[in-house]
């Protein structure tokens, strides 16, 4: 019996191989090889490109622990990741619910298009347009002052809130899409059954809708949290003097001083920390999902 299953699955694998090959070939060439090169770099004293003598060392990893600077920044970046994820849930989940359960037909397509639209524009363009909106004398400031009877001064540019706004805008579509998929899969008859049994709207949400859509929420949160922790472009452009995060100092190591080994080591520490967080969270999340 067991043997039969084994041969069966092996035959399945053989026929699946041509289908899997392109994806795995691509992953090997585009992700696995460069990543292994970076792991290799992170243990070196110098880049071999520079023509200087190099040797293996653990110093790059040690410097993370010897300088409080890196820990402070990592904490700041993790906090940024949590805050952005939270705002994405607050904004994205209701939107996904309306898309999945309230709107139908044309209007759903139109709203869906609006949600996807930011994906079609370049990230830098998005961030620079926020710069025009948020600064003093910018679009938001001018528009509000034109409408309001009293004078207010809105200058969000180069601040922590500006970074949050820019990142939430970039990543909220992920949350909308993942939640939309799980919310749409909820059978309407379950909702009707709950209603007919006398559940209030809040009870429906707490007992039926949120638990059933949890996988979408979790997937969206992971998709958003991980890249935000390592983000460097948005903080640099929108954050001004408060825009130094873990991602920006990794960028500095690569671009400004060409210390690739240290930059690589810092990146892998970030990767490890993120993996640990996801691993610690996974039992909780799995139960929830």
């Amino acid at each position, binding site marked *: 019996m067991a043997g039969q299953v084994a041969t069966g699955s092996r035959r399945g694998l053989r026929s699946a191989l041509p289908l899997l090959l392109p994806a795995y070939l691509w992953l090997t060439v585009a992700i696995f090889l460069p990543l292994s090169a970076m792991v290799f770099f992170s243990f070196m004293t110098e880049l071999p*490109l*520079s*023509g200087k003598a190099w040797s293996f060392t653990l110093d790059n990893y040690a410097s993370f622990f010897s*300088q409080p*600077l890196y820990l*402070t*920044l990592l904490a*700041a970046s993790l906090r940024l990741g949590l805050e952005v994820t939270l705002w994405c849930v607050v904004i994205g989940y209701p939107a996904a619910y309306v898309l999945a359960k309230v709107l139908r037909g044309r209007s759903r397509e139109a709203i869906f298009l609006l949600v996807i639209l930011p994906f079609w524009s370049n990230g*830098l363009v998005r961030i620079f347009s926020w710069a025009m909106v948020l*600064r*003093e*004398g*910018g679009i938001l400031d001018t528009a509000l002052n034109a409408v309001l009877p009293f004078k207010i001064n809105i200058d969000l*540019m*180069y601040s922590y809130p500006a970074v949050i706004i820019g990142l939430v805008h970039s990543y909220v579509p992920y949350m909308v899409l993942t939640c939309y998929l799980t919310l749409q899969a909820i059978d309407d008859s379950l909702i009707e059954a709950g209603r007919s049994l006398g559940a209030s709207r809040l009870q429906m949400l707490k007992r039926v809708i949120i638990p059933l859509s949890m996988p979408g929420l979790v997937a969206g949160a992971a998709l958003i949290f991980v890249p935000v922790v390592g983000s*460097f*472009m948005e903080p*640099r*452009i929108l954050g*001004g*003097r*408060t*825009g*130094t995060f873990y991602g920006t*100092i990794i*960028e*500095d190591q*690569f*671009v*400004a*001083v*060409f*210390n690739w080994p240290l930059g690589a080591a810092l990146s892998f520490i970030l990767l490890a920390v993120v993996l640990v967080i996801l691993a610690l969270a996974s039992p909780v999340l799995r139960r929830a999902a």
Partner: protein
Amino acid sequence: MRMPKLTAFLTATAVFASALAATADEVHVLNWKGYGADEPWAIAAFEKATGNKVVNDFFNSEQEMLTKLRTNPGLYDVVMINAAFNDQALAEKLIQPIDVSKIPNYADISPDKAGSPMLNHDGKVFGVPWVWGLTALAINEKAFETPPTSIGEMWNEAHKGRVTIRDDAVEAVQFGAIATGQNINDIKDMEAVKAKLTSLMPQIRTFWSSENDWNQMVASNQIDIGTYWSGSADRAKTHFKLPVSLVIPGEGAVAWLDAFSIPVGAKNVAGAEAFINYMIDPKFYVEWVTKVGAPVSANAKAVAALPEDAFNRKVMGDPEVAKRIQFQAPITDAQREAYLALWQELKVNVK
């Protein structure tokens, strides 16, 4: 933001090196983007005059430039190197001696630049001085009735939240050295520099990294004063008609010298010599200053060809200014990393 470019260049250079086995009459030039050598009118004039075709490639930092030279031996014919990096390029055997007799305009280069010990080794010339300039202060003219004269204006409470400084560790530390009255190439009291820069942080609105950042902030009236490059301030005023003027503070300013070198293994040395000669020619320089705005030419005749009241002639040529400025000397990798550590610490503590 700069990372995609970086990875793109790593893959692109591999393709480049194999596919573009440079033909003899092509001149491959490596320089900053938007820095004279890629002006379309200049390339057209040079190509017409010499029959060489110019192929431009760019770098975003001196380290990137050195890496491009290391990883692409034989690809480039001309490279623009800040004189402070000439030593390092030579030590790594990336550049070759230049036969200046093939470059007629070399004779007109002012002797203090041509004779710079950073560009000459064992009686051989490894860099032809092109232009020099200052990292000084620039002001938003709308914010000042009379231009300030002291570097201390950056710390003036009146400009709180309206000051900018470049996000560059070396520039920031050397700026701090000038503000504390020290020699930028021999900083004795690093603690004083750190304390001075720490007290500057609350004044700062944001850090700039490109000319475009600076000009945008002035155009939208977000800053009053900040560190800026002399050539860029000139470009902002001439080309973009912005209310920007350069201030060379009484305490001094950081000066840099940019020079052209020929990489080891260049395939078109004759074309490289012709290109360098063209770049230091007075005719090109005057056109560059008038049309676009530029730093100061190292060629004395080129500067003399400017109108008498031109900023690059009147102010930058002033002997009083010459006394105040300090030219950047080479710095070691260890110093650079120490400066970066200091700078990052300052930026983190401000949070």
